[in-house]
């Protein structure tokens, strides 16, 4: 039955953890009371991307975008918006800077500059219903491929599109398919790498949870192109919703014979099974991933031989990540030329970034390649909150580098990020402001890779750990200038001689901060001060005359070290201060600074 109105409730992981399921239950209850269930369709959709505004509810027609919706708001939405057609103004999303209320969601600056290909169905359909995917031309690309194209044409079209792998190094997807297609073997495999492990990155999760069929369809197209009949999705066990929706999607696709034998009566057979990863970051590396599927310890091996020649169980294997696959059906529906026209010459299409850190709109954004970092951070991302100053942006997950203000106007693509000492990686984008200590940032990322190193090769196993020791020493105030040299030399050695990409890129956060923020390192080791006031051994907070006496700092101080009267400048008692930084975070006028004390007091 047709419905006069759709209510889309975000079922992404952020909104789900803000109880969006309870919103749906409440909607159901109220709508049934109002006897409207026949007219209005409730959809638990995939992620809308604007996670900082969740839970999100979108009403169509009209694309009214309600943010921070609670159970208590549901009755009003139903009675006002659904029954009378009156928009509930107070729930409308506001732009982060000018606080303008936005009625129609395409007017939001956050969405305005985005171009959604990989995320095209996320937030638009019910991911647990294959018919909703089909209604949006789902499986049409597979049908087109199987009925009108030869495998060689599929590979050629893929090459022509210029799509590059969205999971890390940005290798040409078409070339990868071509290598696998050229390997002669009766048994070949297609693997979807869904072992998304970068801290803060969740685009793959959003696709798997919000649009699982796009991955299944793409894998089948790839299977046809390279001559494979079996696919595996290696997905993290920590993504239970994705696993559940994938299993459901595979079941539905099999029922409709979109997977299995003789798909679209073409004689082509393809099936997909899930394999769950146990949460090792290194299993995102394709050879380690395959070792894990084979039941071995997830450790990378040297390439060559490449998986396209000798992969899973020794057979030619094509491995692509989730986002890469999510682009594939659209490319085959609209053609390689359409896709090639988007983005830059050498990096066609779009890229999804997970915006995080010191930025107003945290969430997922999909932008055409060639968009500048400034546009992403300030236009789409809404800029830095709390009037803080931008310091750096870190891209590419734990293995990426930090990019400074000077490079903000560089158009983003695979090659430009590498040229800036960072990388695309899976698309993490963490924004840092003046309150971030870059030494601490390097330490944070290294801490991650130290834990996630598989332990196989010496440089990564021993080198990352030694680097972390040195960073800990620097942050504790015990570093020397010699330590900086040693740090840099180990970092270069690890980068040059590690076995896999994890080790080769692990020093990036250290090397890029050493290059761009050497003064901060020097401040730590020579002046014994942390300019951002993060490293507690090297920080002494003082309240400057900018203080308006609002008392927020005193209220937030956990050890009552701040005193002062209302509307008067406050004072910190350094003998009580534990250097937690709570006052600095609380201050609305940035009046708390961390300056070095005179030498004698610093003892």
């Amino acid at each position, binding site marked *: 039955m047709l419905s006069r109105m759709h209510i889309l409730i975000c079922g992404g992981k952020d909104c789900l953890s803000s109880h969006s399921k309870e919103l749906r239950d409440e909607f159901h209850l109220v709508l049934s009371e109002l006897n409207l269930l026949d007219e209005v369709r409730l959809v638990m959709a995939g992620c809308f991307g604007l996670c900082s505004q969740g839970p999100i509810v979108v009403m169509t027609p009209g694309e009214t975008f309600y943010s921070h919706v609670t159970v208590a708001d549901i009755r009003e939405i139903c009675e006002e918006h659904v029954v009378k057609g009156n928009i509930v103004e107070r729930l409308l999303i506001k732009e982060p800077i000018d606080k303008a209320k936005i009625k129609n969601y395409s007017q939001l600056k956050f969405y305005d500059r985005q171009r959604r290909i990989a995320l095209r169905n996320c937030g638009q359909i019910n991911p647990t219903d294959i018919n909703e995917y089909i209604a949006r031309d789902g499986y049409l690309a597979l049908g087109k491929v199987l009925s009108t194209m030869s495998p060689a044409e599929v590979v050629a079209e893929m090459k022509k599109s210029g799509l590059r792998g969205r999971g890390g190094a940005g290798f040409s997807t078409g070339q990868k398919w071509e290598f696998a297609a050229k390997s002669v073997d009766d048994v070949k495999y297609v693997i979807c790498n869904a072992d998304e492990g970068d801290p803060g990155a969740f685009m793959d999760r959003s696709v798997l949870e919000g649009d699982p069929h796009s991955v299944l369809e793409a894998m089948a197209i790839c299977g046809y192109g390279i001559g494979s009949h079996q696919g595996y999705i290696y997905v993290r066990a920590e993504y239970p919703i994705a696993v559940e929706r994938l299993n459901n999607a595979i079941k539905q696709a099999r029922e409709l014979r979109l997977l299995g034998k003789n798909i679209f009566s073409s004689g082509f057979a393809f099936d997909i099974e899930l394999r769950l990863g146990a949460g090792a970051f290194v299993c995102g590396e394709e050879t380690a991933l395959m070792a894990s599927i084979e039941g071995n310890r997830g450790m990378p091996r040297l390439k060559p031989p490449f998986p396209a020649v000798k992969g899973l169980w020794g057979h030619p294997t094509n491995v692509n990540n989730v986002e890469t696959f999510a682009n594939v059906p659209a490319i085959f529906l609209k053609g390689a030329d359409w896709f090639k026209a988007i983005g830059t010459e050498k990096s066609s299409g779009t890229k999804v970034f997970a915006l995080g850190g010191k930025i107003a709109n945290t969430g997922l954004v999909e932008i055409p390649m060639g968009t500048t970092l400034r546009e992403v951070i300030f236009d789409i991302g809404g800029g830095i909150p709390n009037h803080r100053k931008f310091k750096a942006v870190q891209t590419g997950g734990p293995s990426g580098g930090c990019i400074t203000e000077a490079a903000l106007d560089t158009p983003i693509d695979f090659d430009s990020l590498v040229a800036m000492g960072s990388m695309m990686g899976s698309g993490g984008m963490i924004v840092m402001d003046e309150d971030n200590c870059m030494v601490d940032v390097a330490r944070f990322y290294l801490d991650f890779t130290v834990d996630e190193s598989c332990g196989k*090769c010496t*440089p990564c*196993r021993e080198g990352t750990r*030694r680097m972390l020791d040195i960073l800990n020493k620097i942050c504790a105030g015990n570093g020397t200038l010699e330590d900086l040299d040693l740090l840099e030399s180990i970092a270069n050695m690890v980068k040059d*001689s590690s076995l896999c990409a994890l080790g080769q890129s692990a020093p990036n956060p250290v090397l890029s901060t050493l290059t761009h923020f050497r003064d901060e390192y020097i401040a730590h080791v020579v002046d014994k001060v942390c300019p951002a006031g993060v490293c507690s051994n090297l920080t002494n907070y003082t309240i400057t005359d900018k203080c308006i006496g609002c008392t927020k700092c005193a209220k937030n101080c956990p050890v009552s070290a701040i005193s002062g009267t209302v509307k008067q400048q406050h004072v910190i008692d350094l003998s009580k201060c534990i250097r937690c930084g709570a006052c600095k975070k609380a201050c609305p006028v940035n009046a708390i600074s961390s300056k070095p004390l005179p030498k004698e007091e610093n003892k």
Partner: protein
Amino acid sequence: MDNYVSVFIDGKPIAVPAGTSVLKAADMAGVRIPRLCFLKGIHEEGNCRVCVVKIEGQRGLKPSCRTIVTDGMSIITDNKEIYDSVSTNLEMLAGNHKFECWKCSRETSCEFLDLLRRFSVDNRFSEDGYKHKEIRINDTSKAIVIDSSKCVMCGRCVSACEKYTGLGILNFNQRGSKTFVGPAQFHSLEDAGCIYCGKCIQSCPTGAIHEKDEIKSLERVFRDKSKTVVVQVAPAVRAALGEEFGYKIGSNVEGQMFAALKALGIHEIIDTNFAADLTIMEEGTEFINRLKNGGVLPMFTSCSPGWINYIETYYPEYLDNLSTCKSPQQMAGALIKTYYSDKLGVKPQDIVSVSIMPCIAKKAEARRPEMGRENYRDVDIVLTTRELARLIRHRGIAFAELEPIKPFGKLAEYTGAAPIFGATGGVMEAALRTVTEILEGHSTPVEFTEVRGLDDIKEATYKVAGIDVNVAVVHGGRAIKTFLEMMKKGEKQYHFVEFMGCTGGCVNGGGQPIINAYTQEKVDVRALRAKVLYNIDANTPFRKSHESEAIKAIYTDFLGEPNSHKAHELLHTSYEKRGFYSK
């Protein structure tokens, strides 16, 4: 020259076969690239990053062991970048290595130490005194100690265990800088199903896995006036001990070996070879009985304790096929504490029975509860060939200058059938020499060359007294599995099968001198050492066990006849199924 490619090693052109690794190509050009984790055919993972080279036009440094040459490739094997990278890598390994060189089992054969010297490695990290690894020492087994504090994480032992034995007892636990090698969850080796073949020890470049050291126990015994030390030496020891003192691989040092034992202060020296001859009498008789009286066939040999561990753990359904004979070590031990004790006029409790073995599993075998009686063990202390060498060195005995001697006493005499026990196929050949002669009732040939050599599985059929006797010889854990699975599925009726836990047999036992990875590439140690034993055999006047006067004498004096009640009591044993990961 279609299958050849031209490459430049440090600027010098050389043509090498296509598919050659850079490491090998450099070897061919006379450039020895340093290496740590590389163990040809066993561990070629390229993870230590010590063998890195610069390939012109390529980013970073490449592991030469795993980089395949391409035509025109220009390879730089040594420059400042490589030197710094390798020495920093080694320094970081050193920073996580516990240096106890004076008490290390690898005092003269540490490949890691050689590299540290070669690169004049600094010791900045170690001076910090901070080790990242939690020191884990797995000392719960009867024979092998895993000491993670010395491990350099090359992974050679992990691959050796998998590839030599097919068991994969060892693997990596944890990850990152906390990674350590051991059985899953650091279970005891015994519970993990280890057979104590010691291939892991032979693969280790340093002292992270070693036999349970018993040198100190022996040194204490030497100083106890109330004890009489009786030592037996296994056949394979004399074929390898010289390597510890600079002799070429494949030198027979039997005379110096006995002289060194005498110099250590041991007066009662017997030869396990004697017990090997005795084994043939017992095992041969047992086989003839099984053949004639419809006993369980095929009969499996039982001299290799590594193999006994294997079958008890993994194929207990075949325990009835095992000969009930004890191994020569335990036969000799039983005689030392009974027959020999009487001859010496010393109470068995006051005799310390020491054996020098090429084997790790022998240490565990000597501790089996059934291998002794009335509160004393038949074999009290088992030293490996390596431990004996260390003891000789520690005492300052100039091995090479010793005048060769022969031990005195009847339990040191042997026929040519005995020393070949130390090589794969030797037990079978020795048995066939005696069994065929007894069954045929007349003189039969001495040599059965079909069962010699290094093929994993050797098969032969001999017509004996009108019966086609099918024999097989199997060595190394991996081949054992292959053979038993084949036998299970196949139709062929085997009559007699020799099994040894180590590939090559005892000459390549886990307790033998360690040959570094580089030398292992160049020569087959198994063949060179086996040749020593076959030479001894060829030059011995009597070559069939039953021709030995000493053997005849012990049956007349003491045991009666083969498989007699007394022989059963002292020289035979029983086996039991054992579980793994059951605790």
